[in-house]
């Protein structure tokens, strides 16, 4: 319980402190330190779960098992490295006069608030609170997307707000239907929305109601995962917000939303004899991967390019979880980790590149390798990793997903391969020109924060070459939970 209290209490306290002093010179350091402490709390919690198995705390309000503690650790880690990156990135933005003190305060405070809502969504045992936390996560980031108050930024934030708001309302309806079914078995009151209680009685839940509920839940949370055709908000929000926020949205929020879908899928699978939930997820996942891959080649903005790449990868992960079974779920979890680490490394590099050249237009970012080799190599290696070239971790997980698909869903394999191939061609050609082209740009005033980039890439490399036994054990335990 102490670990959970710290895990949730730290970001919340940080948000309050930064709401008061977020514009001071040391605010960025405070932001990073709070994130570091949160990471330590997450690691303590992880150590405990690994050694003692699942636990619930606070009168069953919180429930932590291998599946969500893995996401808690990932979220806290990327939250910390993004804070390190944001320290340098936001200072440059401030020097360029893009930020007033008030906006900087908003940014720092909402950064911690966003961490809090995501960690709450991950650790809560109550499906209703899960919904509340997901909605709160949207609310905390919506003003950050329009932080620069440009016309495009406000438009992106409005779209994000309305689309995710409508989407998440569908998820609320799904949750209400779930409660309707659960209340028949568990009786009215607080316990009928507790996931552990629902899990115990899931085979007694009314199948008709649950299948309708799952459709609403998938559409609702799927909007936040960025599943096609509900993905419209995602590229805009990623492109217009400050880069640390793009990173957090793309690497963490999407994962947490998918987590919500998977938690509900476990319940629905138990109630339904059919494979309806899995089939729906496979369909949406495959469609997302394909459509996003074909949109990739048409992008002219570098952050939009990688936003579409996120949609593609979330589609692949959704497909893997939809397929189910120990191997596919294992691969899905591995892919989630590898994608989060790689894509955030890419976003860090892209952020620095965009600041250096003063533009996000791909055609105007050229010759990174000459002006700042580290950023150039970071972007190049990151792109190679995300495209699934061995020996990086993304290759390992994609390979597992593809081989499982060949055995269990052969029809889907060519489609998946097509999506990966088209994505490869589009991203590689664009990144190559950005890194190796000719340039006249000058150096940055502040040295870029490249440590996070290379730490992430090293971890992904490690995942591709060697998964430590305890990590593999942990993934397997989580995969068993998901089924």
């Amino acid at each position, binding site marked *: 319980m102490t670990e959970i209290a710290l895990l949730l209490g730290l970001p919340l306290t940080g948000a309050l402190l930064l709401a008061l002093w977020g514009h001071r010179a040391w605010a960025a350091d405070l932001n990073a330190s709070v994130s570091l402490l949160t990471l330590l709390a997450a690691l303590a919690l992880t150590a405990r779960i690994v050694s003692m198995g699942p636990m619930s705390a606070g009168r069953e309000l919180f429930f932590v098992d291998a599946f969500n503690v893995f996401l808690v650790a990932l979220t806290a880690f990327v939250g910390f490295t993004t804070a390190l990156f944001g320290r340098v990135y936001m200072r440059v933005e401030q020097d360029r006069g893009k930020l007033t003190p008030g906006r900087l305060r908003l940014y720092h405070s909402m950064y911690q608030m966003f961490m809090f809502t995501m960690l709450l969504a991950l650790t809560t045992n109550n499906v209703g*609170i899960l919904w509340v936390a997901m909605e709160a996560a949207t609310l905390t980031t919506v003003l950050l997307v329009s932080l620069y108050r440009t016309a495009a930024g406000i438009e992106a934030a409005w*779209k994000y707000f309305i689309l995710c708001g409508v989407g998440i309302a569908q998820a609320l309806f799904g949750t209400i239907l779930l409660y309707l079914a659960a209340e028949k078995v568990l009786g009215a009151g607080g316990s009928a929305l507790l996931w552990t209680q629902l899990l115990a009685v899931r085979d007694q839940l009314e199948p008709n109601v649950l299948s309708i509920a799952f459709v609403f839940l998938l559409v609702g949370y799927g909007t936040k995962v960025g599943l096609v055709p509900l993905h419209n908000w995602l590229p805009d929000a990623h492109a217009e917000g400050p880069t640390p926020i793009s990173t957090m949205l793309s690497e963490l929020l999407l994962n947490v939303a998918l987590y919500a879908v998977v938690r509900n899928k476990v319940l629905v699978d138990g109630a339904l004899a059919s494979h309806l939930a899995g089939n729906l997820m496979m369909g949406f996942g495959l469609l997302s991967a394909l459509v996003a891959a074909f949109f990739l080649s048409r992008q002219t903005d570098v952050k939009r390019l990688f936003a579409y790449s996120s949609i593609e990868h979330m589609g692949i992960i959704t497909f893997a979880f939809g397929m189910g079974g120990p191997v596919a779920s294992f691969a899905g979890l591995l892919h989630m980790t590898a994608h989060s680490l790689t894509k955030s490394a890419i976003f860090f590099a892209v952020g620095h590149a965009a600041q250096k050249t003063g533009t996000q237009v791909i055609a105007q970012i050229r010759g990174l390798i000459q002006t700042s080799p580290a950023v150039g190599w970071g972007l190049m290696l990151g792109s190679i990793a995300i495209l699934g070239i061995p020996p990086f971790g993304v290759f390992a997980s994609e390979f597992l997903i593809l081989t499982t698909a060949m055995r269990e869903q052969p029809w889907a394999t060519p489609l998946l391969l097509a999506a990966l191939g088209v994505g490869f061609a589009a991203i590689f050609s664009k990144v190559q020109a950005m890194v190796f082209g000719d340039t006249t740009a000058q150096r940055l005033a502040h040295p870029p924060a490249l440590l996070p980039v290379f730490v992430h890439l090293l971890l992904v490399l490690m995942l591709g070459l060697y998964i430590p036994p305890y990590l593999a054990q942990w993934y397997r335990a989580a995969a068993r939970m998901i089924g």
Partner: protein
Amino acid sequence: MTLPVTHQLINLMACLLLLIAFAMVSQRRILRLIYLFALQGLVLSVNTAVVAFATHQPHLYFSAALTLGLKVVALPWLLHRLIDRLNIRWDVETLINIPTTMLVGILLVIVAFNLALPISQLAGTITRSSLGMAMASVLLSFLMMITRRKAVPQVIGFLAMENGLFFAATSATYGMPMVVELGIALDVLVGAFIFGIFFFQIRETFDSLDIHHLEKLKEKT
């Protein structure tokens, strides 16, 4: 077969909710739209109180009071102040003309009732028929969001959708657990404040609250 008075009352409230949803879809004036929204909140609140009385669930009285405070007083007052401050009085422009919208709305009601049929047969709670009506009013609010061009009516549509969902929650189940309900209320309130901030940002940047200014970000063809 005659139903007890409370059940008839709940059915009446469901009908009123649907009627107000139709009225909102057809309403052209922004101020009336806000009044209708407040009225819808009142219906919701009364309904929650009636359900609380019929099922002897004391926590629902609290929920009814919360709805009354938030959706009948606070949010309409906030919206009213906003349109005063922003000085907007114009008529609401719609993308499709209103009679067509109403016809689409009728179709949506039929869809909603069909969708709700298997669920409400299972619902052992006192109010079977109201689930379909709640769903219909959710869909109608959605329709309103799609067909309006200005930011304020879109937001009212959004909030009305939330009302429909709450009605579904109280009539199909006996209301969600208290902690969840409080959380949702907090989200709605914060959301409404952010909407308010947005109105000013949009207005400051575009000199208008017309959403068609917000259609620049598109995939290039």
